[in-house]
């Protein structure tokens, strides 16, 4: 087993590049996502991204507002009860981002198809509707025959569709807990993170907690992402903020609205970026930026009992830093 703990800066520098197919791993638009990883991509100036997004989150809302997303495949482009995603909406309406529509059920199946290295995935959904007929990549083909082409069931002769499979260059996946080797536990809905971890060519985990491997040996059935599919592990507390991370912190209601309001205009984005992206380097500075009072409020929530069985294996910041410097040797 290889110690894969590295810094956020290193992970983004090593595993991302302009024009790549980038997938982020989260749980719908309010739940957990590798949002801190996306902030660091912005710091490092990543652009022309081809994004695979089961659901938009504040990460893709921010990256789109920054003009960093050239193309995006998505199942859902909003922020649920928090409203439309202004940054992404603006990028799509102005033609800056090409948005290719699927659904929340078909993106995970296409990832599963990529994980299994299938040639295609049978489509019983997203057919007989404009997800089939409208192709943002090839707008002149209408009704489009090539996005979800017809395929005949060899057993009945009935017609269905076929989806392309997804194998992103990188998946940055938020997990609740990871050990230094890349074994990870998710609390709350997995959404499509399991499929993503197998479909992507490289996988970086962004974890709220680093735990000892003994935790994994006590709960191996919870380790839905084993080390063999993981390339790097990044520790970043509160890393899904302002989203929630089940068992750890609530979504930051005020900030969810404020961030989305800011992303409505380019000026707002510039201000947001200064304040919430360029203002920190370390995770300590990041936590200071959020503020201790806010953190205390968000981490006092009705799901925290879900973390109780694992607390004794949580590694301290100092222990994590030691592991990070060991890993570098």
């Amino acid at each position: 087993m290889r110690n894969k703990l590295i810094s956020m800066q290193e992970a983004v520098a090593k595993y991302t590049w302009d024009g790549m197919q980038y997938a982020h791993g989260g749980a719908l638009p309010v739940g957990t996502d590798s949002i801190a990883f996306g902030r660091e991509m912005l710091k490092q100036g990543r652009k022309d991204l081809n994004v695979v997004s089961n659901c938009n989150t504040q990460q893709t809302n921010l990256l789109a507002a920054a003009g960093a997303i050239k193309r995006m495949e998505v199942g859902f482009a909003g922020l649920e009860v928090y409203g439309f995603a202004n940054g992404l909406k603006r990028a799509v309406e102005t033609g800056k981002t090409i948005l290719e529509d699927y659904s929340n059920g078909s993106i995970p199946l296409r990832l599963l198809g990529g994980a299994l290295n299938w040639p295609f995935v049978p489509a019983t959904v997203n057919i007989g509707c404009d997800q089939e007929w409208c192709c943002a990549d090839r707008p002149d083909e209408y009704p489009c025959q090539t996005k979800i082409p017809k395929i005949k069931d060899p057993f009945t002769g009935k017609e269905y569709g076929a989806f392309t499979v997804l194998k992103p260059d990188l998946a940055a996946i938020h997990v609740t807990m990871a050990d230094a080797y890349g074994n990870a536990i998710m609390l709350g809905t997995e959404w499509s993170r399991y499929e993503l971890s197998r479909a992507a060519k490289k996988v970086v985990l962004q974890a709220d907690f680093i735990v000892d491997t003994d935790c994994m040996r006590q709960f191996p059935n919870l380790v839905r992402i084993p080390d063999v599919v993981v390339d790097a592990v990044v520790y970043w507390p509160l890393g899904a903020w302002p989203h929630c991370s089940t068992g750890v912190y609530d979504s930051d209601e005020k900030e969810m609205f404020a961030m989305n309001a800011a992303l409505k205009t380019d000026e707002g984005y510039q201000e947001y970026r200064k304040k919430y992206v360029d203002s920190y380097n370390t995770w300590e500075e990041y936590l200071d930026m959020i503020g201790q009072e806010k953190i205390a409020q968000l981490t006092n929530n009705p799901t925290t009992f879900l973390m109780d069985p694992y607390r004794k294996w949580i590694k301290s910041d100092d222990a994590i830093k030691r592991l990070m410097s060991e890993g570098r040797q």
Partner: protein
Amino acid sequence: MDYTRQEMMAIATGREFSDGELAIFGVGLSMLAGFWAQKNHAPNLVAFTEGGVFGSTPVGGLPWGIEDNRISANATSFTNAVDALGCLVASGRVDNAVIGAAQIDKFGNVNTTGIWPAETPWSAGRYVLPKVRLNGSGGANEIAVGAKKYVIMVTHEKKRFADKVDYISSPGYLNGGNDRQKYNFVGGGPSAIITTLGILRPDPITKEFYLDAYFPFSSIEEIKENTGWDLKVSPDVKVVPEPTEEELANLREIDVTGSLRKK
């Protein structure tokens, strides 16, 4: 009795759910209607979310999303999207559901993807950019294709009730009749459009939605005026019974933050 149009819509929607059904709820109004039904008359209504959150009820207020901590705090199982939307919804197992709509047409096709006020993709014959980009289908496409039946819940405004939607995000009866069969959809299609003014149901043959009932505070005229096609009216058109005191009390216990009470 003092109740809002939103409350009437939620209660009318909730009344569509029967005890023992397997149902999937979305966020917001849809979830309120569903949990109200469970509390009010369908104690064995079994619900889950498209994230695969099972066995839970909202804690501390209406969830901001279907994966929010407020709906995750007392779950008995967390699985995933392939399970919830694939194995349970698209497969045809779910008995009943609710979806929303930005735009809807007379065959119950739902648009939640964008608004094309001038040229639409189908009128232009190419995929033109929307003037206003909306959220896309989310899991509603799976519900539309797979659920045995489902309710479409929508604010009754003329701009939303189009003869033909700009974009079909979630297919209803497509061009009507048995048009769904072309795609071998396992689900039965929408059973009702429940609005802030009344209840529309599909004609059993043509699948065109007609006015089946209106709310005590609305009228056939108001509804026809706010519908973008020449809405047919049932010869037996009814008035929907207004919420009973018990129904309303139950709803307000669920809607702790009073989100439906804003007039």
